[in-house]
């Protein structure tokens, strides 16, 4: 068992510098994530469009594609997997709907994407924040848009999510399923990329004054699931999500009335009503850390509570220190 690891606050320059930055085509490859002051913002990348031919302009191809999508939806001509993941809807509607938020509003930059394997199972473990789970949505967009293999993140959610109408159904269609060991292990053995936010409601609903302080990591169920299936654990640190809805108060009686874990008061909500639901445009960084291998252990090690606790702590410490490092490099929550 390794002793407590010392994680340097400043990762060595060469290590970070050679990592591919978010988009292969973007300027400033190998640049440190937070921009130096005065540097112009990186141009938002243009998606490679099919070459418009003389007889068929680009808009017509786009129209054709969207009509095809509508036809598939109207005739039920698509497949879903046994978890209810609807790839057609996710690629055709849900991810495009989130993309403007990802690119223009939060201007998400990803770091260390090469740590995420292009194929095979892996477990992405991230910090949870922001009152509403936009951080999980943005991680899913990041892994689809900025990863060369365009991976779909299969998120594990609390049972509350799946009890809710509309949201519960959408979460399943986007690839989510209930956070329980049978589902997690089934997904990872079938080679899927699984995302967990082990802080749960303690993390996402923490008051603004506790921002970027990791909460307790549950019971370590995610570690034992990874041990049983032998997939790597990829620590993921998300900076920026804490500032989207700064939760400065909590109306407990209202929360109890709705059966919700909390009823947030932010500077704009419920003061501005529905307008207060608009997230503040903070600048986001999502860093994927070095994978922690679990295939060196045997599946029986999943029943060793000490090993599970130690690995849980190692993942938690890695994420916490990466958060501190990213924060120390960030000048401004909104400008980056």
């Amino acid at each position, binding site marked *: 068992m390794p002793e407590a690891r010392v994680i340097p606050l400043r990762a060595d320059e060469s290590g970070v510098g050679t990592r591919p930055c978010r988009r292969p085509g973007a300027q400033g490859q190998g640049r440190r994530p937070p921009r130096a002051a005065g540097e112009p913002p990186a141009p938002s990348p243009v998606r490679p469009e099919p070459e418009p031919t003389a007889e068929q302009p680009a808009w017509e191809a786009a129209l054709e594609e969207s009509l095809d999508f509508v036809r598939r939806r109207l005739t039920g001509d698509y497949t879903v997997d046994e978890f209810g993941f609807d790839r057609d809807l996710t690629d055709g509607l849900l991810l495009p709907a989130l993309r403007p938020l990802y690119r223009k509003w939060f201007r998400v930059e990803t770091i260390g994407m090469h740590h995420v394997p292009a194929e095979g199972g892996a477990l992405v473990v991230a910090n949870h924040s922001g009152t509403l789970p936009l951080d999980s949505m943005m991680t899913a967009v990041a892994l689809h848009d900025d990863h060369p293999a365009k991976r779909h993140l299969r998120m594990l959610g609390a049972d509350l999510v799946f009890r809710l109408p509309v949201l519960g*159904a959408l979460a399943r269609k986007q690839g989510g399923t209930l956070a329980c060991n049978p589902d997690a292990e089934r997904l990872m053995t079938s080679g899927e990329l699984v995302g967990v936010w082990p802080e749960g409601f303690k993390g996402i609903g923490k008051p603004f004054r506790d921002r970027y302080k990791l909460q307790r990591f549950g019971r370590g169920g995610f570690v034992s699931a990874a041990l049983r299936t032998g997939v790597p654990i990829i620590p993921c640190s998300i900076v920026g999500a804490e500032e989207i809805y700064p939760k400065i108060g909590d109306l407990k009686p209202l929360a109890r009335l709705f059966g919700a874990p909390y009823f947030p008061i932010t500077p704009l909500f419920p003061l501005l009503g529905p307008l207060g639901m608009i997230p503040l445009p903070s600048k986001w960084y999502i860093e994927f850390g070095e994978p922690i291998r679990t295939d060196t252990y045997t599946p029986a090690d999943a029943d060793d509570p000490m090993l599970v606790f130690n690995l849980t702590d190692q993942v938690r410490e890695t994420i916490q220190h990466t958060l501190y490092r990213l924060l120390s490099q960030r000048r401004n929550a909104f400008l980056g």
Partner: protein
Amino acid sequence: MLGVDTVPPPRDLLRRMGRAEFVRADIRNPLIAKVISGAGVDTVVHASVSANPASSGGRTAMKEMNVIGTMQLLAACQKAPSVRRVVLKSTTAVYGASSRDPALFDEAMMPKEMSSGGYAKDAAEIEGYLRGFGRRRPDVSVTVLRFSNFIGPRIDTVLTRYFALPVVPTVLGYDARVQLLHEEDALAVLERAATEELPGVFNVSADGVLLLSQAIRRAGRVPLPVPSLAVGPVSRVLRSARLVDFSPEQMRFLNFGRVVETRRLRDEFGFTPRWTTVQAFDDYVRGRALRPLLGPEQVAWLERGVLAAARTLR
């Protein structure tokens, strides 16, 4: 081969029964013991667990038929030394359906909350009695087949009537994952269980999953999302109109759906369903000649029309 039922089979079925004989008897009556011992029965296939209160004359009669009938039947089997094999047609409804369940059920899982009544509770109790029977008669091979919902061109179930409605009511904001089994596969499984010794509990279902909304669209029907509060009145209207009779547990099924793991069926039972869920459903739609309100042809025609209009605009 003996067929036992409370009502005689229709004439066309009698003609196709071949060498099988029919005995009109009620399994709630101890007379069934005489039938079994008199004929020297070696294999008992109990396939009469009823899911539908309306067809079996109300919930009380249904429960009596299901539970008391099974108790009588098993009591008769226990006394009959000739019985070597008992096969029970059970249901995946024993797993329940809730938001707190894992995505797939395997045979070892139990429901999060026991169903308070109805078909699922009957099936769970019947399985319990059968386990007790298995302990008392360890020489008898006991097979429990947990079937998912049947579909096909000939079978008549709550689900086949539901999808035949022109406007299909669904629960607003929920989209269940539905796993089906083609009627021919179901019969093949029952046949295999009756002729070979394969003790154990097996989930029986086709591969693949359909979403409820997807199934409705594939059938060319129009979904009508009903808010959860209005679900009760709507299902009462459907029941009184004798269209579809939904029990509360079937409503929960329409909310969350249910998918089971069928690895044991393939590996240990040695059966691979011929039809996937989607194929079975399409066969049902074709076989019933459901006339779609909005079929693929119309949609394709619309698509071409819009594209042609866009080209002329250019």
